[in-house]
């Protein structure tokens, strides 16, 4: 450290001397390059200033006393910058540490999400879930029971980032510890509601929609807990209707009942489930309208489900200049012909 320090000090002396002789742009360019070097070696402003004073005293031994003393004055003024510089360095180190921790947590969180989408002959499923920052407050899950029924859950923790992610991990364990046998959507939400009500701080809320698709009779049963309504597309009518399920947000009241709804799904029909990050996608003109979202899905509806969700995500991401403001999750389940 001391070696390279005096080495850098000598270098300053040399390039300054060169500049004072030639007084050209090359010298100034070298000064600019030198400033990168002092930053690289973490030399603080007051030290750089003292390089200058030492050099000047050597070049001009007869420098007036008052001019020389003025450097002490300047040195004192630079102390604040020096302290700020060191604070910046330590904050930067701390930030790196935090980022490394968050990266580990984020990759742990990824393992909470299903690794693959269940493959069923009669269904075409597409999923996309993208966090606004590194960690997500959105959750989705697929369950396939022994009768080949496909359960699909989408949940959104109010809030985002790390607190939401912590809360999400609890939902995952609560889902995993549900009884093995198939639960009806309403009963499942009642179960989860109890867990959330008992375990989560009263200022955290979770909205959720849970649906179960029976491929034998092509019925889709669903219940919701204050979750952003999805859409149901009917191929025969070529219309999108709102997939709304009335129900209180999870974690508010211990004994809550959730109404169960159902749809008869015809070939080509599909169900769209989403998190509020999709509809609260903000553009310069304000939030996008649900109608705009429908138009977007309609535009790609002939594509496979996975391609639809990816295209819709890309377009909405582009609308927001590739800066997500909230976690984004979109699921499409389509009955194949």
């Amino acid at each position: 450290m001391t070696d390279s320090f005096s080495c850098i000090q000598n270098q300053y002396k040399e390039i300054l001397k060169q500049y004072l002789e030639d007084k050209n742009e090359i010298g100034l360019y070298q000064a600019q390059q030198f400033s990168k070097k002092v930053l690289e070696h973490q030399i603080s402003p007051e030290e750089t200033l003292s390089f200058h004073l030492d050099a000047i005293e050597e070049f001009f031994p007869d420098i007036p006393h008052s001019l020389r003393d003025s450097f002490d004055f300047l040195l004192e003024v630079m102390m604040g910058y020096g302290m700020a510089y060191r604070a910046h360095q330590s904050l930067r180190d701390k930030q790196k540490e935090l980022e490394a921790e968050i990266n580990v947590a984020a990759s742990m969180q990824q393992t909470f999400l299903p690794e693959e989408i269940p493959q069923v002959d009669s269904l075409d499923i597409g999923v996309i879930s993208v966090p606004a920052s590194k960690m997500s407050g959105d959750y989705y899950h697929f369950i396939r029971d022994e009768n080949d029924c496909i359960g699909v859950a989408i949940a959104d923790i109010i809030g985002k980032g790390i607190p939401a992610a912590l809360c999400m991990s609890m939902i995952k364990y609560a889902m995993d510890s549900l009884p093995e046998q198939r639960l009806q959507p309403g009963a499942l939400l009642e179960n989860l509601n109890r867990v959330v009500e008992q375990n989560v701080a009263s200022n955290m809320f979770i909205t959720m929609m849970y649906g179960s698709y029976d491929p034998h009779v092509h019925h889709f049963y669903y219940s919701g807990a204050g979750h952003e309504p999805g859409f149901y597309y009917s191929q025969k009518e070529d219309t999108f209707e709102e997939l709304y399920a009335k129900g209180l947000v999870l974690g508010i009241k211990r004994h809550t009942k959730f109404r169960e709804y159902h749809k008869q799904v015809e070939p080509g029909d599909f169900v769209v489930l989403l998190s509020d990050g999709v509809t609260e996608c903000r553009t310069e003109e304000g939030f996008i309208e649900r109608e705009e979202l429908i138009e977007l899905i309609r535009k790609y509806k002939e594509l496979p489900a996975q391609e639809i969700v990816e295209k819709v995500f890309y377009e909405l991401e582009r609308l927001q200049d590739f800066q997500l403001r909230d976690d984004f999750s979109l699921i499409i389940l389509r009955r194949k012909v």
Partner: protein
Amino acid sequence: MSIQSNVEVHTEWGIVSARQAGRNLAKDAGFGNVDQARIATAISELARNIYLYAEKGEIVIQYVEDTESPVSKRGIKIIAKDKGPGISNIRDVMEDGFTTSGGLGAGLPGVKRLMDEFDIHSTAGEGTEITAIKWLR
């Protein structure tokens, strides 16, 4: 050369006197311009804390020698003590960005970085004693 200076701090004049005493001692000890300014700044920050939060206290500046370590070292030790309200959350005040007054880089973490050694002891309601040492390189 004097070995120790004690300066009472209860006005801004006290802060200036403490700085002056520290600078003189640092100069006598053989510190260069930059380190003199750092020691004066550290004293300044500690004395200001006394002035602002404890109203009055004392800054002691000593010439120190460490003969116990393998290579003997010499330096300057600053002790800032007051019988003010004390600090109940030392961890917080040692955190960057916590300062309630002053801007970026100031405060106790800033002082700690200016010096080589730093120690703080404080009891709420009784007072605070901060010790900081800068060694000659």
